[in-house]
């Protein structure tokens, strides 16, 4: 006997229910990251003053995902648009949402300078170790030996350098008194939500926050669910999951 489940999923208030099913690929991590972010916005009751900026790449699909004022930007340029907003409107809580390419390659200068200046915003960098939207090329975060379209024989760190560690870099340059810097992972959704909450609290108090989220890209990785999970665990070994700077609590590291 089959039953139709008609229990509505628990959607955060800050998620746009009109969008319906996620537009991301099956198995993609973005939906989980965005949902956690939306729950954190709910937790703090800041939906009415949040401005959400999405970068180009897979992030662009989130342009109407949240029920908050949102602007889609150019590749790498979400950070300056959002600090442009929060400089002009100090009441706004700005969130710039980007991938590893948008944050650590094409928009790296904006990330670095926003952190140095302590721009009043949260930068969410979703690290899935490749460029998803463009078909799976090497990203700054691609793991050693990882096969991508532009490293078809595996990433050779002698030729292409080592994977970029965004959170460590930002932790080194952000003002420890007024910043929150962490790396989280979609393998721990509860922690992800509380991480976003702390980050947004920091911004609400006038600080700068950076959260790198380890995520998955099964389509471009060409992995099934078991291998996807295994790859995420491998990433968690390489990219340390922790709070690096927690200025609001007066801790560093």
């Amino acid at each position, binding site marked *: 006997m089959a039953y139709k489940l008609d229990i509505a999923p628990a959607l955060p208030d800050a998620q746009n229910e009109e969008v319906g099913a996620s537009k991301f690929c099956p198995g993609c991590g973005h939906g989980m990251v965005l949902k956690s972010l939306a729950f954190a916005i709910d937790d703090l009751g800041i939906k009415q003053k949040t*401005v959400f900026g999405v970068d180009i790449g897979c992030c662009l699909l989130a342009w109407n995902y949240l*029920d908050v004022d*949102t602007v889609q930007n150019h590749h790498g*340029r979400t950070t*300056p648009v959002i600090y*442009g*907003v929060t400089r*002009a409107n100090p009441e706004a809580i700005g969130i710039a949402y980007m991938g590893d390419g948008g944050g650590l390659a094409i928009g790296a*200068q904006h990330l*670095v300078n926003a952190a140095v200046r302590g721009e009043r915003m949260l930068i969410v960098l979703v690290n899935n170790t490749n460029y998803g939207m463009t078909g799976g090329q090497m990203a700054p975060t691609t793991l050693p030996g990882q096969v991508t379209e532009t490293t078809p024989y595996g990433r050779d760190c002698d030729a292409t350098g080592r994977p970029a560690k965004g959170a460590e870099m930002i932790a080194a340059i952000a003002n420890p008194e007024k910043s929150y810097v962490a790396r989280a992972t979609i393998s721990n959704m509860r922690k992800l939500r509380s991480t976003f909450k702390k980050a947004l609290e920091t911004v609400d108090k006038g600080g700068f926050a950076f959260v790198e989220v380890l995520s998955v890209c099964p389509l471009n990785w060409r992995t099934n669910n078991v291998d996807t999970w295994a790859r995420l665990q491998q990433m968690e070994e390489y990219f340390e999951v922790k709070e690096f700077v927690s200025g609001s609590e007066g801790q560093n590291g």
Partner: protein
Amino acid sequence: MVNKLIKEDTKMFLTGNEVLAYAANAAEAEFMYGYPITPQNEIMHTWCKLLPKTGAGFLQTEDEISAGFSTLGGILAGKRAFTATAGPGNVIMQDAMSMAEMMRIPFVCAVMQRGGPSTATVIYAQQETRLTCYGGNGEGFRIVYSTAGHQDLFDYMIKAFNTAWTYRFPTYVLADGYQGKMREPVNMYDPASRGITMVPTEASLLPDGEIGKDRKSMHWRNTYNMEEELMEVLDEYKVDFEALEDKIAEYEEYKADDAEILVIAHGIVARSARTAIDELREKGIKAGLFRPITLRPLARKPLKEAVNRAKQILFTESADGQMAQMILEAIYGCTTPYSTLYKMGVGVTGGDIVAKVEAMAKQPATV
């Protein structure tokens, strides 16, 4: 709200860059985002020096890319924000300018042209004419005012904000390093004293009202899924842009009515042309000037009429025909022969134009 510094008519002797900062304040501009590049630096220097009095905002960004994009952010937040740039800065700011074009963001930028291509000179040129009018990966849905001196800088900087916020196309004050750095007298005034009301700004992000109660959340995009979807949007933009010609296109004619040799020049070169025309008239040569003030959109009808009235045309500019290329397209069908005086990245003097027109009077152009 910002404090306006010019409350009554004030005559001052300033550099053009200083004039632009005062004009932006007179226009009630609230925020400037910028990155240093010569020859436009004194715009932000002056803006910053005046901040305690004006109560406006300023952010020095990490490059012109971010200066452009943060200006867009400030405008989306509902502020009358602007930026300024030049040369290679104008090149990399095209990224933000094309987003402004796509999303109809009332972006205002002063471009103080310097030599190009590349780093070239920090001094002067008219080589960013094409870039300012048609840069980015779009169709050139932009409004460009080409100024010819400090009074223009003051008047058109104020006008640029109102044009941008009325029609929602990126709007430029296109000047150059000579205008930016030289000093001359300028009459500054409160726009209200001239019957000019500043068009109110509005926030695209966090406008008034509660989401879910008074309004829906705003979702602004610049990406389209289908080709037809994009074309539908751009077709509408095109209709709006083409309607602008009748509303805002501006030009200046000087002794053009009976001119046998019509000089066509824009910006500071048009000023050289005026002195040349007076000298040529004294020598009995009927020369005149047509100066497009808006390069986008061009005042095509009066332009064509002036061209048809003349026996010869002289295009002159501090570039290799960037303005002429746009004019020639606009006057397609006119048969008046033309000659050219192009000095790439170098000023065109009245003497240059006198010599050229005298030669044309002796040996008419055949092109």
